[in-house]
């Protein structure tokens, strides 16, 4: 959703929070390295009753309340199923948080440091030099 590399996102994730369609969530699939920032397309609140001896056969979820979600990037044509690595729905535990606020371009300092390690070393050397030269 028009977030660029280097933007700072403020996330909240209070434990009892319900997610709604239209929320921008950051989620990570177990086994995937990077978290993905996409918008919720569908939510389905299911309650798996404790009567079942084993997890519900069709949904493969443990008993309790679950909020199942499907996400999609705004500029993509299809939803994120291909990114889910075999999962059909996202569960609450996959979500790192919901985006509340936003500061552009702040992250570029860190990105510049990571992309150009010479910059990092040059800065460290410069700071070391200053520490040595300084009198106070």
């Amino acid at each position: 959703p028009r977030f660029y590399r280097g933007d700072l996102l403020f996330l909240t994730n209070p434990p009892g929070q319900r997610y709604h369609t239209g929320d921008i969530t950051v989620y990570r699939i177990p086994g995937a390295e990077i978290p993905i920032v996409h918008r919720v397309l569908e939510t389905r609140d299911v309650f798996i009753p404790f009567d079942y001896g084993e997890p519900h056969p069709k949904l493969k979820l443990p008993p309790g309340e679950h909020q199942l979600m499907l996400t999609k990037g705004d500029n993509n044509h299809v939803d994120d199923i291909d990114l889910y690595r075999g999962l059909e729905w996202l569960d609450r535990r996959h979500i790192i948080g919901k985006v509340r606020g936003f500061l552009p371009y702040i992250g570029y300092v860190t990105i510049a440091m990571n992309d150009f390690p010479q910059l990092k070393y040059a800065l460290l050397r410069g700071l070391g030099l200053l520490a040595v030269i300084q009198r106070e």
Partner: protein
Amino acid sequence: MHSIYARANGISGLWSTCVMVLLGAVALSSFLFNAESKGSLDIVSLKVFHSKTRRYPFRNEEIGFVKFNLSADLTPLFNWNTKQLFVYLEAEYTNAQGVNNTVVIWDRIVRRKDDATIDIIQKEKYKLRDLSGSFSNVLPAQYSLKYSVMPYVGVLTYGEAARTMKAIDFPDARDSVS
């Protein structure tokens, strides 16, 4: 302030404080614009067919096809801190097992104030299907148009622009062209 280092330190400190205060002011200015927008939403037709999706070609499912008539004026939501507006039409319903579902069936990104009036009769973009695969045990659905304002700097805000007057029942599933 008698060395270049001390001067540079002072200037950069002042500069970063000014930038942070400016960004904070821009973010707070969004709260001054308490705009709301209203529109109207009607469902022209709603049909349910036995269908297969391309993704799960072996599942027999019922898929809902919605045609809706939407008119909304979203221009009051555009202010100097609005980067873009994300508008989405969603269907909310509960099925007989008590599962609450909200499904987005259509969305649009509005980047400029000129594009902010919507007056369309259109079909859904995304498939409307139920977890159980059938709409026969599903309570009537409400459709609503919601929006999300994305600022250049600051807090994301949400709102609702239109809603169907009454809940609409799902018809029985038909077989498609046979």
